[in-house]
């Protein structure tokens, strides 16, 4: 997109005035400056995005409330089942 824009700029410049070699050089220098400026802006954006990704990765590794509740549920479930079996055996022994 920027290349197209700079090409159009050069072309309109060419049709507008009588071209000399100095004019050509100035226009190309301007175009190169614009491209460099655009690249630095994009670099800043990329660096910002990379930092965000790193922070996100770190946050994903931490255990959340879901895992905690799941683990506590497992513990109470397993021990609850064994407690149930014990109670069942007691009841059956009492019935006899």
């Amino acid at each position, binding site marked *: 997109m920027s290349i197209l824009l700079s090409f159009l700029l050069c072309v309109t410049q060419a049709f507008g005035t009588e071209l000399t070699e100095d004019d050509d050089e100035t226009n190309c220098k301007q175009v190169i400056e614009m491209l460099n400026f655009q690249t630095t802006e994009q670099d800043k954006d990329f660096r910002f995005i990379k930092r965000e990704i790193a922070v996100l990765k770190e946050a994903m590794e931490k*255990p959340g409330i879901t*895992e905690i509740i799941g*683990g506590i549920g497992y513990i109470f479930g397993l021990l609850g089942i064994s407690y149930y079996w*014990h109670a069942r055996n007691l009841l059956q022994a009492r019935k006899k």
Partner: protein
Amino acid sequence: MHISDGVLPLPVILGSFAVTAIATSWSVRQTNPENLPKTAVMTSAFFVASLVHVPLGPTSVHLLLPGLVGIMLGPSAFLSIFMGLFLQCILFQFGGLTSLGANAVMMGIPALLAGPIFRLMKGTNLSSHIMAGAISGAIATALATLILALLLVSAGEDFIGVGKIAFAAHLPIICIEAIISACTVSFLYKVRPAFLNIPLAKQSK
């Protein structure tokens, strides 16, 4: 303080799994089924305790609670800690599956020892209970640090160096655990003293 995968050599891994299997089956046999709800609560407390981080310079260490688990549960402590560690490994990826045996030995043996130590020092009044709770909490955590240093020695580290670093890093945790154990014991002494009378082994009827 959990050891990750790939640190320990194979003989140590196999040996620690063997010790864990024996200790877990012994612990299961010694468990009185009446104590299962209390075991569930202590296992959950141990499971969640590792999320409490104490910042230490660039890194942080986390709370362990082997002392309190040992005081409250007695012989069932090893089963409780093994279950807690297994679920932490699966759900939180704390420590590896291959080093589960080593982690269980590291935290379960001090917990098993904390019970008898507390029972010996218990005494009859509140202040001796508090002192016993604090000391067994501190000793259990210190023992866990010692076993960690021993395990890392088998991986090829220098014992004195690793021991010093591990102990220095966990010194705040040892103090915090002593305080937590003492506070819990004092609360239970006032509210439900029956919870503190754990037999050392299952009485056969």
